């Protein structure tokens, strides 16, 4: 299921032009990452899409407007963060960056789960960033030029702006770490969309085994573009479909 919708996604992901005019966040929503990312985390919205008509999905030839909500961030926080992440890992002449990887989508979801203890610092930090931009430039961070954004972030990293939690530098480092996570993690978590992060560093992808020949090829090894959870043994329903590697007996481990 995931693999099929991924194929669709990959196809749609290549039709850059038709979404270009819709603006960054809109575009990245429509790029269909929602289907893979959301389906993988079992989001209601995505399963609704699946349930409605999976056969039409398989043969889809135009973008599907999957329903996808922000889970934790507000709209302004998300657009601020989108601009922030784009400075950290830019989309540039060397190819896609945090934007295409959908790092913000990852962060938003992670703040509802394993990064929930960082929610407060995101709220405080992103508003401090916009407060500073409003005060000095009369605009939100996301509305400033890339050059200006970069120099402001340099000041944040150097701890020269106030109002952050726990500190400007601490906030910067936290966002940097989470942006890297969201760009290079397993796509299951809603980032590293279309494996752009793994391709960026020429990581050939997770494998359940690596032969000496595989290793010797290094980055020449063909990327397999698989999530860990494309392997059924690691999914919720695995006990029904794969008993080779799982526990014996299928019952209680004890």
């Amino acid at each position: 299921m995931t693999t099929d919708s991924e194929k669709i996604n990959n196809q749609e992901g290549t039709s850059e032009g038709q979404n270009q005019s819709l603006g960054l966040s809109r575009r990245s929503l429509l790029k269909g990452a929602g289907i893979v990312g959301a389906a993988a985390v079992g989001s209601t919205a995505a399963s609704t899409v699946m349930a409605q008509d999976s056969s039409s999905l398989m043969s889809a030839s135009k973008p599907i407007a999957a329903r996808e909500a922000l889970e934790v961030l507000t709209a302004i926080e998300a657009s601020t963060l989108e601009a922030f992440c784009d400075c950290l890992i830019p989309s540039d002449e060397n190819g896609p960056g945090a934007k295409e990887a959908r790092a913000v989508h990852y962060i938003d979801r992670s703040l509802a789960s394993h990064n929930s203890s960082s929610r407060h610092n995101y709220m405080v930090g992103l508003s401090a960033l916009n407060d500073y931009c409003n005060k000095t430039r009369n605009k939100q961070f996301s509305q400033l030029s890339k050059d200006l954004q970069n120099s402001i972030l340099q000041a944040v990293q150097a701890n020269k702006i106030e109002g952050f939690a726990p500190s400007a530098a601490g906030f910067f480092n936290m966002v940097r770490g989470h942006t890297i996570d969201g760009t290079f993690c397993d796509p299951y978590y809603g980032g590293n969309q279309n494996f752009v992060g793994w391709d960026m560093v020429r990581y050939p992808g997770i494998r359940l085994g690596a032969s000496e020949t595989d290793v010797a090829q290094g980055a020449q090894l063909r990327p397999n573009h698989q999530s860990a959870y494309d392997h059924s043994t690691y999914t919720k329903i695995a006990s029904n479909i794969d008993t080779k590697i799982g526990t014996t007996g299928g019952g209680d481990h004890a």
Partner: protein
Amino acid sequence: MPKTLAKTDVVIVGMGAAGGVAALPLTNSGLKVIGLEAGGWLSPRDFAPDELRNSSRNWPQSMQKAATEAPTVRATAEDQANQGGHPMMNAVGGTTMHYWAQSWRLNPWDFNVVSATKERYGDHRLPAGTTVEDWPITYDDLEPYYEKVEVTVGISGQAGNVQGEINKEGNIFEGERKSEYPMAALRSSPFTDMMSAAAKKLDWNPFQGPAAITTELYDGRAPCQYHGFCNKGGCHVQAKSSTAVTSIPKAIDTGNLEVVTFARVTNIVTDNNGKVTGVDYIKGNETFFQPADAVLLASYAYENVRLLQLSKSRAFPNGLANNAGQVGRHYLTHHQGSPVMALFPKDLHNWYGLPAQGVAIDEWADDNFDHSDLDFIGGANLWVHTDRKPMSAAKMTTFGEVRSWGSDWKAFIMKNADRTNYAYIQKTTLPYENNYLDLDPVVKDPLGLPVTRITARYGDNEKRITAFSQEKMEQWYLEAGAIKIVKSPPGNAMGASTHAYGGTRMGDNSETNVVDRWGFAHEAPNLGILGASVMGTSGARNPTLTVQALSWRTAEYLANNWRSIVG
């Protein structure tokens, strides 16, 4: 009042690396054993090849008992103690589920640091303030137990000294072994081959390190597939020789071991004569008293010490087995930090390596080299391994070439993600007078019980070994063609560590040690203590195999001397 359960012969607190091994000789001898484990069972299906899950989400450790009782840490008694993380695992198999699985024997010198140093260099060479003692046993005493564990759980490696015959493919400095490893070492890789060649040019003796990982079909378990998610993850094919897939199932098969999961032990109970009578534990919302003729305490070093300190009674007003005031003393954590990082001008092909698939240099460890003109004793084992993952690659140092973000940074990591390596350098660490564990006066766990407070810092001896070993490591990397090197500075405070030692040290002198040479408390003879908390020195290598050999020895001694121990 706790509900009193039917009496058993032995209760083991903790079914991890230590307790999971000890259960086997006990149950084999016919004793009835109940293993209380704070975590649950995990299966290969729980260990997906998922870097985020292992490294950032910290699954499943982040949800466990240990995470709610992480120790507080301070360097000295004058500092504020702050709570940090807890690196340990609550699960059947404990940390052997998610560790790197390097499985070393200590070198003979580690057992008699005091007498060997005095003999070779004079009394004045023992660092000021250290409380180090010779172990009450030697390497030769432990050798048969190392072998039992290596064969039973399945250790792969290349011997360097079998019955005096030196093999340069292995560690020429190791103590004499009676036999070869039961399995050949993990395979080398293009990177480790390159590092080995460089070491040989320096006239050093490189060798593949020993690992609790199968390299062939062993005891029904598949060989390692080299996919490389060992670090903080379990094995998807059960090639990692965790006690959960080796000694514990064997002990269960005897019919004499019952494992109770999600059991949180809160108190070791003693009678008025100071004899241990059993343990109290909480499971769900119920409290139970499990009576037993003997108790083996086999949680981690911090929890071993904390449980003793919490278990106050009429016979032991300052905590169990602590009338001499030694519980929590002689604490140390292995100095594993201060790595050396190297940048190479070509890809290293390390995407699929595992941390135990590495090459070691032992020339600069222990007393394997002349310290006459040096200002420290001991040394470091240099270790390079194959393990690269995309998130950690992106988080690497930029060697001062670019700032840590933006287009230049992106170009840097695109080029260099597979061109860096960091060395893992384990250094001799000694116990000191001012380093100890006690109960934190402020911070409590969810049950309202105080957590452990660590007061400890490294001494000059450790810092000098750090500087010395970093230079050797730099020399090795440069010989292999590295173009840039970064050396991390030595730390000060000894934070909570995966290599924590002492607190219930083993020794003949009951005034300075908690347990005797067999691992039983001087003050409570039917209480055995298992784990690195009984170890008085760290050596320059991972502790688990030594912990397991000692555990087997203590358990076997209990079975063989049952009547005299339980009375």
